[in-house]
């Protein structure tokens, strides 16, 4: 080499670049922190107001009570969450029964079977479905689905009923399941499909035996999101399901075993936790009253239910995970 003793210029530049880098880092961290702070703030608010409520109404009474009438005309308030839980569960389960299978099969079709042309048309269409305001879905259920069901399958169905609302919530969450699941399936490396075809697997065997297991954690997260969305869905339910907190009749079967006929819930009006909250928030109650505080107890319940579900699904997804 040369005999020059000059070393290459590796000098650290002025502090400006470091300052800029630091600013960017701080900005990004601040955005992340804002999300986290919001979540914490919501939880703290819910908890503190719920505590006020539980000082008036014992938790046991709240969790086991079968009568929900926070603001009756003639007195005799009751804050039992059971009828609301039943409403919420029925809507969520019925919606999941529709959205999870249909969404998953749609995702398999889009990822494995559809030609690139079909996919380029169908995927945006599905995403439009996700963009429709839920109040539109609600009226659609009330104006079209309920009359159609009444005219065909269930003539005795009431105008506001859980079934139509649940079907609509299910349809609304299909794109959520299909879109996220399809992303997960498309991310499965093509080498794995080739390996399957090379062994003489059919398209169906490759899709169900290789692609779906390899993307199961993505599919599971789509399920969590969809079910959480169904639990929290408010507008469709307010419009199509009515707002009557009802307990289904317990019937006595031939052998003396009491049971509940699902039709008593599905074909009748009902109320979910979210609708109960809307009703209170929309009323002319002000802070400091027990019904007002009950809103926070309901919110906290929803929060806990969703949280438990997320944790459970994480555990399940972890167990069946097939990482590639």
């Amino acid at each position: 080499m040369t005999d020059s003793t000059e070393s290459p210029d590796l000098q650290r530049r002025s502090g400006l670049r470091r300052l800029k880098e630091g600013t960017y880092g701080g900005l990004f961290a601040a955005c992340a922190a804002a999300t986290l702070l919001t979540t914490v703030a919501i939880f703290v608010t819910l908890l503190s107001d719920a505590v006020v409520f539980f000082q008036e109404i014992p938790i046991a009474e709240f969790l086991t009570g079968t009568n929900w009438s926070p603001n009756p005309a003639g007195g005799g308030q009751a804050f039992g969450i059971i009828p609301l839980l039943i409403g919420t569960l029925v809507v969520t389960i019925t919606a999941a029964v529709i959205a999870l299978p249909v969404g998953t099969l749609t995702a398999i079709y889009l990822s494995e079977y559809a030609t690139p042309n079909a996919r380029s048309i169908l995927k945006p269409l599905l995403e439009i479905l996700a963009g429709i305001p839920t109040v539109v879905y609600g009226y659609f259920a009330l104006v079209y689905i309920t009359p159609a069901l009444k005219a065909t399958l269930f003539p005795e169905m009431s105008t506001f009923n859980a079934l139509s609302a649940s079907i609509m919530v299910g349809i609304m969450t299909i794109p959520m399941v299909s879109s996220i699941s399809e992303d997960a399936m498309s991310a499965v490396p093509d080498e794995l499909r080739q390996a399957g075809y090379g062994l003489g697997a059919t398209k169906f065997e490759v899709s169900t035996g290789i692609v779906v297991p390899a993307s199961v954690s993505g599919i599971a997260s789509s399920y969590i999101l969809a079910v959480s969305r169904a639990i929290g869905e408010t507008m469709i339910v307010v419009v199509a399901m009515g707002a009557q907190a009802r307990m289904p009749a317990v019937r006595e079967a031939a052998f003396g075993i009491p049971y509940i006929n699902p039709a008593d819930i599905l074909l009748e009006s009902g109320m979910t936790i979210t609708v109960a909250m809307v009703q209170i928030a929309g009323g002319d109650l002000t802070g400091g009253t027990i019904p007002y505080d009950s809103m926070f107890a309901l919110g906290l319940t929803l929060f806990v239910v969703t949280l438990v579900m997320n944790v459970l699904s994480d555990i399940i997804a972890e167990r069946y995970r097939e990482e590639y």
Partner: protein
Amino acid sequence: MSNTPTSDSLITTDVQTESTDRSAVSGATAVAARDLNVYYGDEQAIDDVSIEIPEKRVTALIGPSGCGKSTFLRCINRMNDMIDVCRVEGDVEFGGKNVYDDDVDPVALRRKIGMVFQKPNPFPKSIRDNVAYGLEIQGFDGDVDARVEESLKGAALWDEVKDQLDSSGLDLSGGQQQRLCIARAIAPDPEVILMDEPTSALDPVAASKIEDLIDDLAEEYTVIIVTHNMQQAARISDRTAVFLTGGRLVEYDDTTKIFEDPEEQRVEDYITGKFG
């Protein structure tokens, strides 16, 4: 690299004698192509290839990139079907039957012709499930565990994995993964094994294990291997087919003949590294 080729041999292949205890010429035909032409859209990938590949031998397909050797390999088990623009004319015969006949089910065909790919591609499943996958989809009703063990032994992997059959195939090293893929390919007991550059993603030690294994596999299976590595072709194969640009099969003969005294000047140039 200063050594010049000696009198007969164009490249030094001292290990070659090891693998040639199988006589290269005799034996029935496992796979044959007749007047095979393959097009990708307007582009011709295989140009009028006719070839007879002997049973229970290792046949190497060599040639420069883009010469059509991988395309040819994928015609044999119809993996090209999945490429929309791919069009095949002519016959590929397997067991005397043209695999492109209308009544041939590519799924059934691929159950008779196993395949090992360039990049090890084990499923994200346990080692056992990887090997058992082919058996499972083919409705194998025998002793699956015994067959898994037999296949892993056949792929020279059993001793390394017998205590961890339930751990993921992806926890293995690259070379082990490729041997797992070979075990997976031989588990359903195919007649032919196609290998598409099976060692090109592996380190030399792992590659040499696979080469030893290929030699053993030829006892029971017809092995057709695409390779970029001419020393490898010389070491492990009984027959060598040389494809050159344009998808033409330029020369096809016993490996010793191809590497020591090829008929075609172009083949000699390619083998000695003058082009390609």
